[in-house]
């Protein structure tokens, strides 16, 4: 506390916050997509992130190829797993009360996390790649974080382009606005659900692959991302996709600012306090209602 805070430190914090925030935005976009299209909160979202991170770990461990290229494996793999889970399990609770989908995805997440414990053990793993930092003036930019940021931004922009411009993307947004009307317009809503769950899982997996080069990997790492992604979509307004971008950046900034003033243990609690405050003061999110 006694350390005086300089302009450089604030600059560093803002940059770090944005770097972290882009990842949050990308991962939360997936959760927002599933929630928008199916009104399902996917408690297993972070589990896909964890599996994506393990894909990257084994990719670089076994193949020895650049970890960022593992996105080519983790995203399609988790897309398929997501489609499979949607097809076999989640589809049965889409129109059921929220209780069912929350519990179902919670059950899926427990099963997958413990399968990962069994298969990969709970040892901490890490992918060593580009450990240095670039110095821009007084600000140090961790190389892996900057590259992960760039990938996250590119993937997020691509996802937005896809949702805005392609026929499938438009069908997804239409289903999100009203699945009855979408059905009447000849959109195969069941198939849209499959694609949405797949895309969301791929986004989570991308998040996993990108954090794998920064932090330690273990089977229970996903839960905190489920929580943070939810916080991001609450900040942005549930079901509001541009809101998810804003929310992610905001969460990144707040966390980094908190780490400047507080110890790490307390800054973990900051996201939580933020959630409770937003729910108290602005329950519809910062941007308000739904917009896709």
């Amino acid at each position: 506390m006694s350390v005086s805070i300089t302009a450089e430190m604030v600059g560093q914090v803002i940059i770090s916050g944005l770097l972290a925030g882009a990842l949050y935005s990308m991962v939360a976009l997936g959760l927002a997509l599933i929630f928008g299209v199916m009104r399902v909160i996917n408690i297993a979202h972070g589990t896909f992130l964890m599996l994506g991170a393990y894909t990257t770990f084994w990719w670089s461990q076994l193949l020895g190829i650049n970890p960022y290229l593992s996105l080519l494996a983790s995203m399609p793999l988790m897309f398929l797993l997501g489609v499979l889970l949607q097809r076999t399990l989640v589809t049965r609770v889409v129109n059921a009360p929220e209780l069912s989908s929350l519990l179902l995805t919670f059950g899926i997440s427990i099963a997958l996390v413990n399968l990962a414990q069994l298969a990969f053990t709970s040892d901490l793993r890490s992918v060593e790649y580009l450990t240095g930092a670039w110095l821009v003036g007084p600000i140090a930019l961790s190389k892996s974080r900057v590259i992960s940021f760039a990938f996250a931004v590119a993937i997020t922009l691509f996802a937005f382009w896809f949702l805005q411009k392609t026929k499938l993307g438009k069908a997804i947004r239409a289903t999100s606005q009203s699945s009855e009307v979408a059905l009447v317009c000849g959109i195969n809503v069941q198939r849209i659900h499959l694609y949405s769950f797949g895309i969301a899982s791929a986004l989570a997996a991308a998040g996993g692959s990108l954090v794998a080069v920064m932090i330690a990997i273990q089977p229970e790492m996903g839960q905190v991302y489920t929580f943070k992604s939810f916080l991001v979509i609450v900040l942005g307004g549930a079901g509001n996709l541009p809101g998810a971008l804003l929310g992610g950046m905001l969460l990144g900034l707040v966390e980094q600012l908190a780490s400047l003033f507080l110890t790490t243990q307390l800054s973990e609690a900051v996201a939580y306090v933020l959630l409770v405050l937003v729910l108290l003061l602005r329950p519809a999110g910062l941007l308000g209602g739904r917009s896709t």
Partner: protein
Amino acid sequence: MKRVAPAVLVIGLLLLVLYPLMASGYEIRFMLQLFMWVALAQSWNLISGLTGYVSFGHVAFFGTGAYAAAILVTSHGWHWAPASMMGGVAAVILALIIGYPCLRLKGPYFAIATLGLNEVVRALVSYFESVTGGGSGISLPPIAATGQIYYAMGLAALAVTAAAHLIITSRVGLRFMTIREDEIAAEAMGIDTARYKLYAFLLSAFIPGVVGGLFAQDTGYIEPISVFPLLTTITMIVMVLFGGKGTIWGPVLGAVTLFVLQEMVWVRFLYLHQILFGAIIVVVVLLMPKGILGMLQERYRLPRTI
């Protein structure tokens, strides 16, 4: 049936009261833990089974109670029994802080808010080292009170089951269940849903806090990882879903069945056991959403209030 059931209950209770006189230390501890799980499962049932608002962080109340009681016992020289009651009070205060903002909203906000709760409380407990001992935990003075804690734990399980019975057979219970079935309709009928949800939540937090305090005294040593494990929440949820959520005896049935299986068989296969828990949740949600007891109720036309 109407006359047999109370008789069976009374005889069962009598046997449980006399049990410590004839059982070994290990057997007493086994039953003590069983009571603990009944109490925890039944508590989760009060909020999630009755109002349909899922709490993913119920172990936070258990841990908070354990710490509050342990601090009162070690630093302030309290007896463990009143200290455990204060553990329950501490848990209720925590529930008030979380529940007040989150339960005013509908939908999954509450569930997610409880998802992070456990981690946050654990982080805070680790941080305030001067009070909680941080990562090194708190050791409670050892006392030979297993027998007394057995009765206290049993009383907690009995109290929360009796409370479930009182609630489910009363208008308050109907209000809770109306919220679960259709919250908008509940509001339209004049039920102050925010208030009743909060009542259910506070009620469901109290006993886990008390039980946490008893657990702390029984094990004699607590640390953040031992009283805030996610697995405890998972176990509570599985027990209730398996037995039958929203019923009086479902959580008891689930707790007894799964605890016995867990102690006999699964303890040796930790991760498999948790995979199985995940699978049970999925299967119950998809195939028998009312659990074992709910299925029996439908098949044999048992009364709803069972």
